[in-house]
């Protein structure tokens, strides 16, 4: 297995006049989780479709699992698994029949197929529902079956296109757990998401995609360092206390109306204890204390000038027109 699972250089894709991907460079080391984060329409799904051999790029060099995408698409296909945004399961088959079909298409022997079937049903908590028609499954069960089907062929590289969009919080956490377990087995995961928290929690490296360009890339920590640091916000009962506090913390910025003082600094325990000590030493009476650490939201805002979670961005209603054609 090569050390680089996915490498893309200068990926371009446009439909007519509209440029969807404008020179994307991506490198994902084997055995890691890479998250492509961005709002709807940023080009996430197009990227996955190109890397997963569904559509071809207008320009760019891509290697997946050591194979050139344009020269050896079938070698790439044999090494990858894709779980799309729209559940790629057959609604009229049962869960077991779906898995069996995948086993057949991967040309596993009958005993190997049965073994894999049982193992995946168990692992994805689908044993009870195995012989029910998928149309009767809940959203969370469908996603789990979807992921289980992707794993039948033991892929080296797995693409997950918005794997938790539309799931309730509990199913989402279950999915996260399952995704983490996959990496433990050594596979590489390429994940797209519009949820900051998801990228933050799962990914080793995160790339921010905005209008077809990567605006930043790095670990969650590295990205957060790109924006001005955090602060502690103190609220006081009256102006006198605020005046006093301003003398203790001369670098703070005060707001007379809200009676607050923003003291720059992180939310680390040691830093916080030092701050509390200084408050106690000066006998300052604080009504409220709030720690604000920069999150990816701030990063997105700082880099694009637009908030990432503007209304209509974080909630994914089923059936966006832009993705209707993605079939």
């Amino acid at each position, binding site marked *: 297995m090569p050390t680089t699972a996915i490498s893309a250089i200068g990926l371009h894709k446009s439909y007519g006049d509209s440029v969807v991907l404008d020179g994307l460079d991506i490198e994902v080391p084997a055995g890691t989780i890479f998250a492509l984060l961005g709002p709807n329409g940023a080009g996430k799904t197009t990227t996955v479709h190109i890397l997963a051999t569904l559509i071809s790029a207008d320009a760019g060099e891509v290697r997946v699992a050591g194979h050139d995408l344009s020269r050896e698409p079938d070698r790439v296909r044999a090494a990858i698994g894709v779980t799309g945004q729209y559940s790629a399961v057959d609604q009229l088959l049962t869960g077991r029949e779906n898995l069996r079909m995948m086993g057949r298409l991967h040309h596993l022997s009958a005993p190997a197929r049965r073994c894999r079937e049982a193992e995946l049903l168990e692992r994805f908590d689908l044993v009870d529902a195995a012989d029910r028609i998928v149309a009767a499954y809940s959203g969370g069960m469908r996603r789990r079956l979807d992921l289980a089907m992707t794993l039948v*062929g033991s892929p080296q590289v797995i693409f997950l296109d918005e794997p938790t969009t539309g799931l309730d919080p509990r199913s989402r956490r279950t999915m996260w757990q399952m995704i983490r377990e996959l990496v433990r087995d050594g596979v590489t995961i390429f994940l797209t998401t519009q949820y900051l928290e998801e990228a933050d929690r799962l990914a080793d490296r995160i790339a921010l995609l905005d209008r077809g360009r990567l605006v930043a890339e790095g670990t969650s920590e590295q990205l957060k360092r790109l924006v001005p640091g955090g602060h502690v916000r103190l609220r006081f009962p009256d102006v006198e206390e605020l005046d006093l506090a301003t003398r203790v913390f001369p670098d703070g910025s005060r707001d007379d109306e809200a009676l607050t003082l923003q003291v720059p600094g992180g939310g680390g325990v040691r830093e916080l204890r030092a701050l509390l000590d200084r408050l106690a030493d000066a006998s300052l009476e604080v009504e409220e204390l709030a720690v604000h650490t920069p999150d990816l939201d701030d990063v997105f805002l700082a880099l694009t000038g637009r908030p990432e979670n503007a209304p209509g961005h974080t909630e994914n209603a089923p059936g966006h027109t832009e993705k209707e054609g993605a079939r």
Partner: protein
Amino acid sequence: MSASYAIADCLTMLGRNLKRLRRYPSLTVMLLAVPIVFLLLFVYVFGETLGAGLGDAGRAGYLRYVLPGIVLMTVASGAQGTAIAVATDLTQGIIARFRTMAIFRPAILTGHVVGAVLQTMLIVVAVVAVAVLIGFRSGASVWEWLAATGLVALTAFAMTWLSVAMGLVSKTVEGASNLPLPLVFLPFLGSGFVPTGSMPTALRWFAEYQPFTPIMETLRGLLLGTAIGHHGAGAVAWCLALSALGYAWARRSFNRERS
């Protein structure tokens, strides 16, 4: 990709489609009901009068005359069902999944075609059984029945490839249900329900040269012992040509990128 994998993939896809057909019976019921209703309508409502126009053949004579037309209508509505099934399939993510797998790609469409031809043949058998129940009798030999069955299967094969292509190019499932509709009416504009000789000139010209007429005339010849003449070769040629056209069209639209 070895040949055994190709066959295995085709069988897997066929198995999938047969299961789907079985679990979604309402479409099959519709495909069965429409030709039977037309058969009963034409025999019991129009049969006496239309039969009188066929040299005083009467209702029983008209039943013998109309059956090949009804059979082709059955095949054509089967095609409509296939177009709907293919278009519905494309709205689901499963086809995208198949496209990202190292499988024998034509298997995806072949599974639909073989499944649909089997389904259509079963429906045709049921329709012919109803015709026999209401008095259809044929003096055909076993070989003639076999030849007739083969011709119907070949026609179903051609219509199915065409309808797979129609299902693939349709943007919606509704569109896929409308596109093959002209095929269902084609038997009317041929020798299916009345002899072409009774039609006005322009229509007669169309009716005599459209693909369904030689097929229906050949079926009639095989089942009723009437003259087949050049229609036999014409029927087979049309089926092969339409199959090739449908296959090329379907393949092209399936391999076209969707985004």
